[in-house]
């Protein structure tokens, strides 16, 4: 294939790579106090340009670089979410990053590199490109987790994330090698034919798949591979935590979908049970463990584990409807989680940020607008209509019931009732508890704009759910038309 066409297909990624490199050079030669502002603005700009490129690139499935790279409707859908999440995270973290003195120009660049990794992950059409994308993402993330190197907690978070991340990557790679050994190919198309042609699935291939799923379960933080999440979320600087909760989750979940619904669709009977177990454990454990949390970042960690569990229900359904539901769920989740973290980033007392849930007391009085927005996010995460989160759960459960996974659906709704308890607790602290020390009233312009946009999206989503549903459904159908 013509190499120029290859470049054209991967244009958004290329743009980001080139600008990221350029930003690095510019950053080095700019005075330290100006570098961060300049580079973060440039990063946001290039991310938005990349969104534009993804949106306006031609639809239809395109392969590039000897079929290692695929650009289809599914990849485009996820890429828009991931890019948007990255850009918003840089924007909302702006003030906080300066405050905790990690406003190095490397920060937006690392975020950009992680984003490129995620884009490669969702565009992977081969086990090798999958692994390269995943590692590019992970390496950048290890560094940003430990970005606040003067803080013991941040360094610990970085180290923990690195060790466990490396372990999971190792397992994933081991899985890939087993799959290659038994199927004789690493390309997704090849795997699909190999699996479809096989009269019975060899044990080695199955073991490989299990290891692959374990590696991915680590990345989406599904129970029992979730252990790193609360510690890393708590330890990492809050803007970084916001990024962790948003973009990598979506990318990893998308990769999960791509693998299971793509080359390994023929082995659905085998992996479906694993997914269901992961899903049930994630929902139940997250709901129960979150109740006793006092740190809001830890709480959000358990919340993200729980949401991964719900998304996995859609995956467990093994249907096009299920995949659509996952995609809808992810898009709504991103808006909620970025909005929530933007609110958390506003929590400051006498200039330093606070993280205890009890610190939110009286937010309803001191910051009525932010409290109202956080209230919407919490009710939405709990899945209460008419907020957007309800529609996410609606489609997930609909897919589960369509696939006749009744008990999974029942466990899901019961866990969501338990889970709503801890979301309500935040509302309770904000509105029902008396004012403790008042939080600082100064709030950045950018962050308040983003909070309002997220809140309005969540609140008014019900007016026209079809906008998102249709695009998710188109994206999902790509994986199913053979």
């Amino acid at each position: 294939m013509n190499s120029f066409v290859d470049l054209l297909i991967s244009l958004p990624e290329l743009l980001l790579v080139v600008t990221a490199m350029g930003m690095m050079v510019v950053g080095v030669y700019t005075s330290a106090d100006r570098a961060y502002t300049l580079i973060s603005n440039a990063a946001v700009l290039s991310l938005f340009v990349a969104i534009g490129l993804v949106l306006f690139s031609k639809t239809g499935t395109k392969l590039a670089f000897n079929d290692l790279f695929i650009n289809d409707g599914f990849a485009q859908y996820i890429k828009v979410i991931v890019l948007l999440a990255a850009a918003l995270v840089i924007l909302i973290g702006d003030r906080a990053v300066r405050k905790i003195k990690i406003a190095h120009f490397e920060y937006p660049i690392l975020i950009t590199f992680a984003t490129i990794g995620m884009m490669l992950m969702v565009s992977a059409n081969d086990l090798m490109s999958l692994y390269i994308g995943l590692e590019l993402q992970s390496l950048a993330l290890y560094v940003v987790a430990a970005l606040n190197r003067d803080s013991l907690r941040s360094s610990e978070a970085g180290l923990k994330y690195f060790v466990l991340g490396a372990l999971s990557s190792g397992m994933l790679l081991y899985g890939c090698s087993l799959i290659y050994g038994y199927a004789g190919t690493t390309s997704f198309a090849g795997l699909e034919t190999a699996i479809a042609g096989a009269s019975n699935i060899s044990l080695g291939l199955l073991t490989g798949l299990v290891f692959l799923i374990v590696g991915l379960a680590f990345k989406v933080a599904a129970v029992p591979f979730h252990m790193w999440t609360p510690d890393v979320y708590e330890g990492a600087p809050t803007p970084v935590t916001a990024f962790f909760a948003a973009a990598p989750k979506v990318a990893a979940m998308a990769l999960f979908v791509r693998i299971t619904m793509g080359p390994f669709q023929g082995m659905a009977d085998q992996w479906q049970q694993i997914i269901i177990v992961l899903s049930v454990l994630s929902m139940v454990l997250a709901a129960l463990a979150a109740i006793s949390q006092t740190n809001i970042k830890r709480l959000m960690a358990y919340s993200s584990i729980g949401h991964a569990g719900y998304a996995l229900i859609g995956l467990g359904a093994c249907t096009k409807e299920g995949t659509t539901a996952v995609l809808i769920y992810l898009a709504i989740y991103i808006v909620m989680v970025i909005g929530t973290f933007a609110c958390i980033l506003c929590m400051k007392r006498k200039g330093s940020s606070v993280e205890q849930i009890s610190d939110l007391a009286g937010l309803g009085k001191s910051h009525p607008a932010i409290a109202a927005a956080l209230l919407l996010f919490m009710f939405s995460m709990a899945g209460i209509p008419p907020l957007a989160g309800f529609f996410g759960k609606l489609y997930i459960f609909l897919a589960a019931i369509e696939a006749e996974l009744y008990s999974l659906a029942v466990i899901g709704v019961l866990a969501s009732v338990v889970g709503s308890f801890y979301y309500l607790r935040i509302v309770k602290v904000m509105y029902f508890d008396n004012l403790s020390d008042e939080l600082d009233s100064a709030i950045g312009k950018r962050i308040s704009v983003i909070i309002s946009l997220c809140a309005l999206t969540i609140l008014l989503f019900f007016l026209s759910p079809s906008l998102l549903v249709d695009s998710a459904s188109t994206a999902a159908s790509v994986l199913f038309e053979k």
Partner: protein
Amino acid sequence: MSNLYLLSLTIFTPLVGVLFILLTYLLREDQEAADNSARWIAVWASVATFVVSLFLWVDFDPTKAGFQFIEKVEWISSLGIHYHVGIDGISLFFVLLSTFLTPICVIASWTAIRNHVREYMIAFLALETFMVGVFCALDMVLFYIFFEAVLIPMFIIIGVWGGPRRVYASFKLFLYTLLGSVLMLLAMLVIYITAGTTNIPDLMTYEFNRGLQIWLWLAFFASFAVKIPMWPVHTWLPDAHVEAPTAGSVILAGVLLKMGGYGFLRFSLPMFPLASDVFAPVVFLLSIIAVIYTSLVALAQEDMKKLIAYSSVAHMGFVTVGIFVANQQGVTGAIIQMLSHGIVSAALFLCVGVVYDRRHSRVIADYGGLVHRMPKYAAVFMIFMLASIGLPGTSGFVGELLVLLGAFKSNTWIAALIATGLILGAAYMLYLYRRIIFGLLKKDELLSIADLNKREILVFTPLVLVVLWMGIYPTSFLEPMEISITKLLVDYDYALASYEAATPNNNMAFR
């Protein structure tokens, strides 16, 4: 047609009020002025809603059995879900009840709510939209959205403006009702996948097989039984009532409990007739326990609000019996009983609110001899107390009489057992009234207690009038609902008969 958008107008007028209150944030008035404008906006918005809803009653054609004022707009096209609203004779009065009580609640909160007035009014107006929406929705998903959205403002109203144990009460309310509703949601999804539509009028004629009906009925029952509430899942109600601010209790007793009964009438009976028939004895048993046991519990209460809360559970026991005996008198009686209870218990909570505002106590023992200082109050309270007992000439009589008639037609024992509820009801209400109103005015704090002021009289007058109107001339309420109920029951009996005919050897044990 001029009344094309009348229903949407009724549903969404309160939200216009919300928008206006939000505007006051932008205008940055001082606190006092902003609070006042919020109160006035809420009054005007809710009164306007009530006026609009009166047009529904005027334009309603009582000779038609089907839904009227239908609006249908494509909404979630991929699932074929529509924004679909309409009312029949059954839902008409629930809509009116909601729009009637909301302005009363707003006026009753005029001075009782002093902090966060704007937020309070926003919550109340949003609540009104959701409540009216529940009774108008003709699409399952739309129904569910309104049904559950009610929880958000209610949680906040109890949690922010409630009493000392408000947090516990609001969580209990939220989690209990949420648990019920999510099971209903799953059942709705099963229905959608089985029947391929979420359109309620279509589903009313869809025939689910008997085994499936049993499961679906149970899931819906989980939701409606908690909401109405039935014994033994009623325990959230006394807590919620005691801790809620007066207007919160009013709307809770007046409208929210009715959603459960309405759900039985809209979903359980028409969609799952076979299962309803199977489970009717269970419902009767639970209702009888509710009537007798919670009446006795009410007799022992020391807190006025708790007493009225337990009496609500007992009254709702009548309603569930009336619905599931599934004959014309029973169902009509159940609906009238719900409407009457909506007005009467709301009024009783307002009565408690009156003395609570003055004395800041709901303990019965803190009062006594109020008739000497508050003659107007004593008179008003008496009317509602007698209506709650079911004295002829009041709204309570009509409902209870019809339910008892319906029950007698079905089974003498059921009728006899729930009739004891009437006696116990008279006992606890008269006992309450005696302890608060009669006797000597001994307590020093009560010597200077003031009688009803103009605003309170304004609040009580419409309630008194409606109670008497329903009691003296119930025809104006019975007539519009008659055909809708007949149709419901004809379909119900037809479904049972055709199942019996199809399976001659089965024994319909409980009939």
